[in-house]
């Protein structure tokens, strides 16, 4: 009962979605639309579960005075202030509705966006340190990796003269020809593995996600 019904669910809905793909009628379109919308709506409940987990972990940290517990207060403060701004519905604190709330947008533009962009920009540093650490001619594979990366990066050297042009051509060949071949091999493999895994899920062979008992 605890496992059979979910497994039957998985099989039934997977089969419905597969059949749906081959049936173009209105009914089939509606089924597709409904099922996908349902997932979004369930997602909201799941998000509530997630927020609950976040609050609980933070609260436990504060209550047990674990290391760095003070920062958990900041998490909760950020969370609840954003909630208050975001759920403010025109009748409480500010004049505009939730998502257009001035502070909500202000937090989004000036806390989320800059931190997000800066985290992303850290990649410029990390890509350099990773290159330094890993691009060493340890083995044939590592050497190939190193050489092709160097050739592509040499595009940005203005002092190479005629060699630069040759490098540029080699780089564009690398990005065009072997790149296409390798990506195609990976994608075909991923496609097959994906289909196989989806089938295993459907047939209930792969069911770690359902837990036990």
């Amino acid at each position, binding site marked *: 009962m605890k496992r059979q019904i979910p497994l039957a669910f998985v099989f039934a809905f997977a089969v419905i979605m*597969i059949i749906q*793909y*081959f*049936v*173009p*009628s*209105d009914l089939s*379109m509606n089924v597709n639309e409904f099922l996908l919308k349902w*997932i979004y709506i*369930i*997602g909201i409940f*799941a*998000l*509530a*579960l*997630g*927020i609950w*987990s*976040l609050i*609980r*972990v933070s609260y*436990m940290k504060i209550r047990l005075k674990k290391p*760095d517990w003070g920062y958990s207060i900041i998490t909760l403060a950020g969370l609840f202030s954003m909630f208050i701004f975001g759920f403010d519905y025109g009748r409480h604190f500010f004049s505009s509705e939730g998502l257009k709330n001035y502070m909500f947008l202000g937090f989004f533009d000036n806390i*989320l966006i800059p*931190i*997000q962009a800066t*985290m*992303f920009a850290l*990649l410029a540093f*990390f*890509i350099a340190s*990773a*290159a330094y*650490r*890993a*691009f060493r001619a340890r083995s044939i594979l590592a050497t190939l*990796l190193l050489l092709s990366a160097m050739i592509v990066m040499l595009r940005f050297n203005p002092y190479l003269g005629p060699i630069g042009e040759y490098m540029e051509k080699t780089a564009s060949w690398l990005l065009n020809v072997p790149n296409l071949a390798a990506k195609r091999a*990976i*994608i*075909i*493999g*991923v496609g*097959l*593995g*994906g*289909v*196989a*895994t*989806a*089938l*295993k*899920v459907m047939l209930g*062979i*792969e069911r*770690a*996600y*359902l*837990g*036990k*008992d």
Partner: protein
Amino acid sequence: MKLKILMLCCIMFLGAVSAGLAQGNIDTSSQTTTPTISPPASPGNLRAKDTPNDNGHSITLSWDLSSDDGSGNKSVLGYKIFRSTNRDSGFVERGVSPSGSKEYVDLGGASAEENDYMPNNSDYYYKLRAITADSMIFAEMAIFGPIQTTGQWYNTSRTLILLFVLLFTSLMVYFIVKARKGANLFVRKLAGIEAVDVAIGRATEMGKPILYVLGLGTAADIATIASFTILGRVAKKVAEYQTGLIVPCNDPIVMTVAQETVRASYLDAGRPEAYKENMVYFATSMQFPYVAAVNGTMLRELPATNIYMGKFYAESLLLAETGALAGSIQIAGTDEVAQIPFFVVACDYTLIGEELYAASAYLGREPVLLGSLKAQDYAKAAIIVLAIIGMIAANFHWNNFTEIFHITN
């Protein structure tokens, strides 16, 4: 004297003639600045049919070109399509098809909420107008109708996909059944997976936890589902060795599923009491805040091993470099092609693409799972054969063959 008079006459005559001609010239030149386009020949043979392989709400029209389209006096700019539910009146413009085109798909809305709702099984009438640069000059084609739209119950253009679904499913079922009967199936070594056991042992020796990152995928992504299986194995080993486990999640449903998985593994290992709900927690569902949190965790908890399995995007290198900084052994696996290079560069072991899916089968060593690997290999061999045939076909322009694989709808 006579000659002089004659010449004078001649000049007068010529002058008159040239003046007359000049007059005429002015007329013609004024005509060329505002050219009058003669009405084009009307297009012919308007036909209409219900658009195939759809849910209805659409009609496909075709016609023969006007003789002034591309040839004749080349005045046709395009064709306007009109539709009505009545033969005699109420025609509404549906669209314009450029000159030289012989077909137009009139696509209506599928539900009453959409503006141009076109209910199925009711009558429609069409007419076609060849238009010119002057909006007042055109040629109309006779009205066609009535015609009805209907939804189909099978999309014939997708038969190839159906064929592949059936073929692949039977291939898999065949090998799984064969594996169940006890056939010995060989599976090659996957360095990344062999490393998992060693890494867990190392973590136990060091007394440090293992960090397992499921990536940014949702519970619906196949890569994440494969990752759940691997997480299950890792968690079981961790429970046996009594090592710590940290699983920060990006998606709340993934968190829920991961909690189930880990709890089941602890149960399997006979240590249900060691399972703590807080091992698997929700960080946040935005990409970079999640990375910020995981990076912080790596530097504070200093896990012995970081395992990244699932869907990863730009954060792959951020995570892997921070992990390297913390001195952890790192094992990664993703099917996200663009991110594989960064994992390969920054991690100790990387499962490339399909290897991630194979890993879950490999770890289990269950015959059913290994059987599916065998089926995948046969499918790959079949692809190679297909590709070779396809290339020969392309070389000699056997378009009938290559067209089969060209799925447009």
